[in-house]
């Protein structure tokens, strides 16, 4: 847990001691009154809360029905839909925001194709919340559907056998079992929304919406730099997230739900009947909105020779893609760096997250709440704050060895930022395990580790794998800490794209984004296929 706690400690110290980075402890707390009297504070806090709450609400509205459909019923093409819902995680939020801008703004692609002008909707508070929701709601979808898939329908069937109506069985059996996962998903959506930087930065200024993250960024990017002010705002942001976390624990924290008992589970789900058609239409529409439109806009921008040339056949070109491979290997280097780092961080974060969740849920060690809370913290921290915290921590002259100024610092920051994913996902899966499985293994002579590996791990493996895939997806395109921490001479995909945007070649940036998303997805799919083949081979042996 030191991984998470130390940079945070240094941010807190920085917030209290404004001259910390110069190695001095003078003027403790002197930055606090300045912040409290800042006239911008209410707007920052209000913007953050309202966008965060709207995104949580929209995500629940969109994610819960889809998750239930996926989890409870035999949905045609189920795996395809899962895969499509993963695409937003591969799409960097700043790319998505820019894609939506290019598609929807006045004279954007939609208008050029004869569609309506949605400029005013896009550049509004609602627009920002909607764009963020489309990126974030899959966390709710996956939390809900995975939880339902893991618990199966056995208990609900029991209720039905005893005479409950389908609705009653759902309300009194399925729903309560779903609640921990649902609450965790919504909380994650909220924290992801309040820590998101790319979308408010891309849309916010034109919509007149400010958020804490953009405020922090501004204090860091504005000359002279206000490290203490941004640290204080970060502490405030963390406080908001912790309040949400406390609320979630209060609402569902103490409910014990046991659904995996070690007895063979019935994994069959019911058919959709006449609702098959409408469900498919719903999924298709959502996939269009979440994947096809932004990806289409992105691909178009990558293929258009000039933006001002508009949608003309003569304006299509592959030169942006060609340029990627001509740039002294910069683009390919960035791609392999990002994929390598993403792979490594998904393995490390997966392992640590699994252990943390297991300690919290199964072992109930002392201070479990602290571990749980600490592991959630980074999700509420804007990347830029983690980045600065890591610099403050690791760039002190007293360390004999430091990962700073090597790729190790990027790995460290990704693991720190993304640890909440495995903890949340595995935690909610562990909460559904019966409390007697592990003791049973222990009684039969298995050591703690043996029981962990052969009993607990296989049972929560689908959740762990899902969270690791998400870590992979997010790490492969993480922007803000990469911008700050990438050692001189090293580029990641997101940094490369950002530089392209800064220099005015939107087309080349979008081409790189396309290549990165396609290769990331490809890698993930082949990993999944490989595991499935092995799992199938394994089950044939029995």
């Amino acid at each position, binding site marked *: 847990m030191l991984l998470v706690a130390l940079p945070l400690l240094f941010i807190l110290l920085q917030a209290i001691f404004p001259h910390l980075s110069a190695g001095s402890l003078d003027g403790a707390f002197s930055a606090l009154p300045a912040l409290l009297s800042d006239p911008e504070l209410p707007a920052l806090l209000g913007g953050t809360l309202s966008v965060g709450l709207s995104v949580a609400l929209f995500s629940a509205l969109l994610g819960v029905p889809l998750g239930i459909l996926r989890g409870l019923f035999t949905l045609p093409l189920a795996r395809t839909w899962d895969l499509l819902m993963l695409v937003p995680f591969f799409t960097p939020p700043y790319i998505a925001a820019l894609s939506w801008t*290019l598609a929807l*703004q006045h004279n954007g692609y939609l208008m050029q194709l004869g569609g309506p002008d949605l400029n005013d909707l896009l550049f509004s508070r609602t627009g920002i919340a909607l764009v963020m929701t489309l990126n974030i709601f899959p966390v709710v979808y996956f939390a809900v559907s995975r939880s339902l898939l893991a618990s199966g329908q056995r208990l609900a069937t029991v209720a039905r056998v005893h005479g409950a109506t389908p609705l009653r069985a759902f309300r009194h059996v399925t729903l309560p079992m779903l609640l921990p996962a649902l609450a965790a998903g919504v909380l994650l959506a909220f924290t992801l929304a309040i820590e998101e930087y790319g979308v408010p930065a891309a849309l916010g200024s*034109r919509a007149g919406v400010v958020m804490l993250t953009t405020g922090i960024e501004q204090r860091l990017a504005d000359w002279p730099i206000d490290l203490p002010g941004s640290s204080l705002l970060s502490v405030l942001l963390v406080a908001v997230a912790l309040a949400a976390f406390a609320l979630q624990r209060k609402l569902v924290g103490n409910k014990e739900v046991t659904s995996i008992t070690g007895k063979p589970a019935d994994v069959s789900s019911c058919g959709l009947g006449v609702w098959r058609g409408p469900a498919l239409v719903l999924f298709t529409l959502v996939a269009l909105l979440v994947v096809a439109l932004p990806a289409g806009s992105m691909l178009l921008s990558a293929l258009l020779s000039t933006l001002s040339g508009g949608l003309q056949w003569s304006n299509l070109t592959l030169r942006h893609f060609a340029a990627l491979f001509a740039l002294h290997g910069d683009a390919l280097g960035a791609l392999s760096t990002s994929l390598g780092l993403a*792979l490594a961080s998904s393995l490390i974060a997966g392992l640590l997250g699994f252990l943390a969740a297991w300690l919290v849920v199964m072992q109930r060690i002392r201070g479990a709440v602290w571990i749980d809370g600490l592991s959630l913290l980074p999700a509420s921290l804007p990347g830029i704050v983690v980045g600065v915290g890591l610099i403050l921590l690791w*760039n002190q002259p007293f360390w004999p060895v430091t990962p700073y100024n090597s790729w190790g610092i990027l790995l460290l920051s990704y693991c720190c930022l993304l640890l909440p994913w495995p903890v949340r996902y595995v935690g909610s899966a562990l909460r559904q395990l019966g409390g007697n499985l592990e003791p049973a293994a222990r009684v039969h002579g298995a050591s703690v580790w043996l029981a962990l590996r052969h009993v607990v791990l296989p049972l929560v493996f689908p959740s762990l794998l899902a969270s690791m895939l998400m870590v992979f997806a997010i790490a492969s395109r993480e922007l803000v800490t990469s911008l700050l921490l990438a050692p001189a001479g090293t580029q990641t995909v997101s940094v490369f794209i950002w530089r392209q945007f800064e220099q*005015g070649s939107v087309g080349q940036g979008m081409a790189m984004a396309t290549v990165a998303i396609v290769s990331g997805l490809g890698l993930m799919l082949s990993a999944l296929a490989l595991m499935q083949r092995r799992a199938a*081979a394994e089950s044939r042996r029995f």
Partner: protein
Amino acid sequence: MKLFNPIKTGAVFAMLFTSGMMITDASALTVYTAGPGSLAKSLATGYEKQTGVKVNIFQATTGKVMARLEAEQANPQADVLISASWDTAEELQQRGWLLPYQSNNAAKVPAEFKTDHYVAQGISALGIVWNTKSGTPEPKEWADLTTDAFKDRVTTPDPSLSGASLDLLIGLQNSMGDRAWQLFARLKDNGMAIAGPNAQALTPVLQGAKAAVFGAVDYVTYASIQQGESVKVIFPASGTVVAPRPMMILKSSQHAADAQAFIDYVLSEEGQKAVADAWLMPARTDVGAQRPLISDLNILPAQAGGSADRGSVLQRFAALFSKS
């Protein structure tokens, strides 16, 4: 057990994948730079070829570069800093962070673009960027953007994020006084949108969502024009401001001699040609470029004095635009 073999293979694979990046060369020169990455790259390559010293580049916006520099105070990493804002150099000099150096190659750099501690790498200017296909009349003056033809069709970079944009506000205020603020008020009434840093103000103009940028950095636009975008950079005859890009050596540098050689290289004819190829004005007056140079422009005074003044201009501008 079998299930985890792919993961193990993956881990080994990942380590092999990334181990190549691990080696950081202690003898290399570290350059932190704002601005065009292609320029940083070509300067580094040219210098490496000439001296054999490897250059590690960290390139970001001025704000991010400064944030990193400030956070690294306890254990500085950078040898050379190239910023996009003259102010930052002044500030660092006042803090006593800079190593004084006068390059022999700086002889042809005008006096206003060099001091004992820092010297311009190149210079950009601010202008109006206008989409020639937007169906609006070509603007000639800043005030033309307040006409009905440009109602709701103008963007401007956020002066709190773009130092160059703030320089323009100060320059206009210095030369026009209160009439500058009347101009800003009319621009606001005409629906001018404030849009992030430079590139974010430009992109909507490229696509035609907006017709013009008030106060765009020129070199980014020249590069887009070269790519075939139908936009035009217009420098109003009434005057505009330039943004020299200071380069400096940090006192904490362990490679002072290499750093000095790097500054010499950037100011050499070859280095200045690379600057011109990035569509900036070369700092040396004896190196040409395919774009208007300082002598072709009417320059307003940008530096008005202390940073308090900058702060008050920024505040007044923010207050003007936050009123709805």
